[in-house]
């Protein structure tokens, strides 16, 4: 009996890639489980589907979702700017700045977010009157009732932004540290100031490292806005629970708000990928697919 390798087939052979049967089996298993779950939700007698459908596009729900998006975007923007400042302070040679940044970060990371939100929301009870002026003189810039100056939504934005700043400061710092020291030296040798170097040379390169974890932060923020229900900000979850406390359809409204949260967090993936592509330019490995780019004069950030 001749062995296979002893028979001369010439060059007329076929190459078969490695097969992965377990990928198919586990994929099929996961799909089956998912379908089963969807079926049990759809067919459950205890869930009134017409209520879900009725409130899915209810104007209060839609308004709540809009508030959620607005608060998320505002808080992430403020949070990211403060985080960058904190990161630069923490990397500074000035010990006082380092100490201040570290203290801020430790404080806001070390206390529960819910507690911070309630604190800012109840600021009016602790300090009924706000006052901005020079102490021990008659000079007053602003004076008024705290609840007038800081409505619930502003309190919520302050709470979420400060907390976000503390968390993402470390992300930004890691990104800055990931940029090679030689980049700063080259920039300095060309006469660039440290501010200019940070803005034009270091941060754009740090972005590559910063964006993926910041995408996570964004999703986390979007969901954390639901905590603002505690101080009655009219965001998505607050709206849903207001409705359900009237019609007692708790599960149905959880499904409604869950649907919107899921939709919004999935959409966030698109801008993230676009940003990753933008800041990944020039970092493709040699022989990669990157095509040379035409010169653009409007290249400023």
């Amino acid at each position, binding site marked *: 009996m001749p062995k296979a390798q002893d028979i001369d087939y010439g060059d007329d052979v076929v190459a078969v890639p490695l097969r992965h049967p377990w990928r198919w089996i586990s994929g099929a298993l996961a799909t089956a489980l998912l379908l089963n779950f969807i079926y049990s939700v759809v067919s459950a007698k205890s869930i009134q589907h017409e209520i879900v459908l009725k409130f899915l596009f209810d104007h209060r729900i839609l308004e709540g979702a809009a508030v959620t998006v607005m608060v998320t975007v505002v808080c992430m923007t403020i949070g990211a700017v403060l985080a960058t400042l904190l990161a630069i302070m923490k990397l500074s040679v000035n010990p006082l700045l380092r100490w201040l940044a570290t203290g801020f970060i430790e404080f806001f990371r070390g206390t529960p977010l819910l507690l911070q939100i309630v604190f800012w929301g109840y600021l009016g009870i602790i300090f009924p009157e706000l006052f901005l002026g020079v102490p021990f003189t008659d000079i007053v810039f602003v004076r008024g009732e705290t609840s007038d100056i800081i409505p619930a939504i502003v309190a919520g934005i302050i709470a979420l932004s400060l907390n976000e700043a503390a968390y993402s400061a470390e992300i930004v710092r890691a990104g800055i540290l990931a940029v090679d020291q030689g980049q700063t030296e080259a920039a300095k*040798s*060309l006469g660039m100031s440290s501010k200019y170097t940070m803005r034009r040379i270091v941060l754009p390169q740090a972005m590559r490292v910063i964006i993926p974890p910041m995408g996570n932060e964004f999703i986390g923020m979007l969901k954390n806005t639901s905590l603002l229900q505690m101080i009655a900000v009219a965001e998505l979850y607050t709206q849903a629970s207001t409705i359900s406390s009237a019609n007692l359809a708790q599960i149905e409204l959880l499904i409604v708000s869950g649907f919107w949260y899921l939709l919004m967090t999935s959409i966030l993936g698109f801008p993230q990928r676009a940003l990753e592509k933008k800041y990944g330019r020039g970092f493709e490995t040699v022989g990669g697919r990157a095509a040379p780019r035409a010169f653009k004069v409007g290249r400023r950030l």
Partner: protein
Amino acid sequence: MSEVMVDARSVRKSYGSVEVLSGITLKVEQGEVLCIIGPSGSGKSTFLRCLNHLESINGGRIYVNGELMGYRQVGNVLYEMKSKDIAKARQGIGMVFQRFNLFPHLTALQNIIEAPMGVAGMNADDAKALGLQLLEQVGLADKGDHYPSQLSGGQQQRVAIARALAMKPKLMLFDEPTSALDPELVGDVLDVMKNLAKAGMTMIVVTHEMGFAKEVADRVVFIDKGQIVEVGTPKQVLDNPQEARTKAFLNKVL
């Protein structure tokens, strides 16, 4: 009589308690090409970095183009300048690094015009024209739109030279510009440097390329343990060294 471009007087530099430069005194004239050779760790890079104040010094003085570099002198005390003024002074000194240090997120052309536009305030059209002319000068006219990752080491180093030249420096510092290159790419970079020397640029070059030193340098300095051991023409220092330490070093590298 030509003008003095660099005047270093008894420059001392320590890291903690370790003295890396122990009193370096050296003058470089305008248009001169000076090569610095010496064993690893002898302080060659450190000296170069002191010249454009990437490192502060602990003693002595450095004048570049007649100006005290990095300090103001009041009486017999030197006060370090504000970082804004140091940045300004660095504009007149180009530097080329062993590992190129091109900005990876910018194309070759953008690398070159970033400082002229952002620091010197040149407008986009002039900067682009200057950038293309410099790319041409280093033999890379068709590579302007390539990112550094799409260029060979030799091409990257030539872009880095063009980037340094874009600020119209009066002095160019090279720290082992060909040490990180494959042997077949070294020639192109050295050619660019030779042309620069011919055009009258004042250059201080830390190098292990003895052939380049012999051909291009006006003077060669041998540094060991943070001190100048021997200075002279390439013939004197490389072919007929007087000091035992220079002889021992040259025996090792040649």
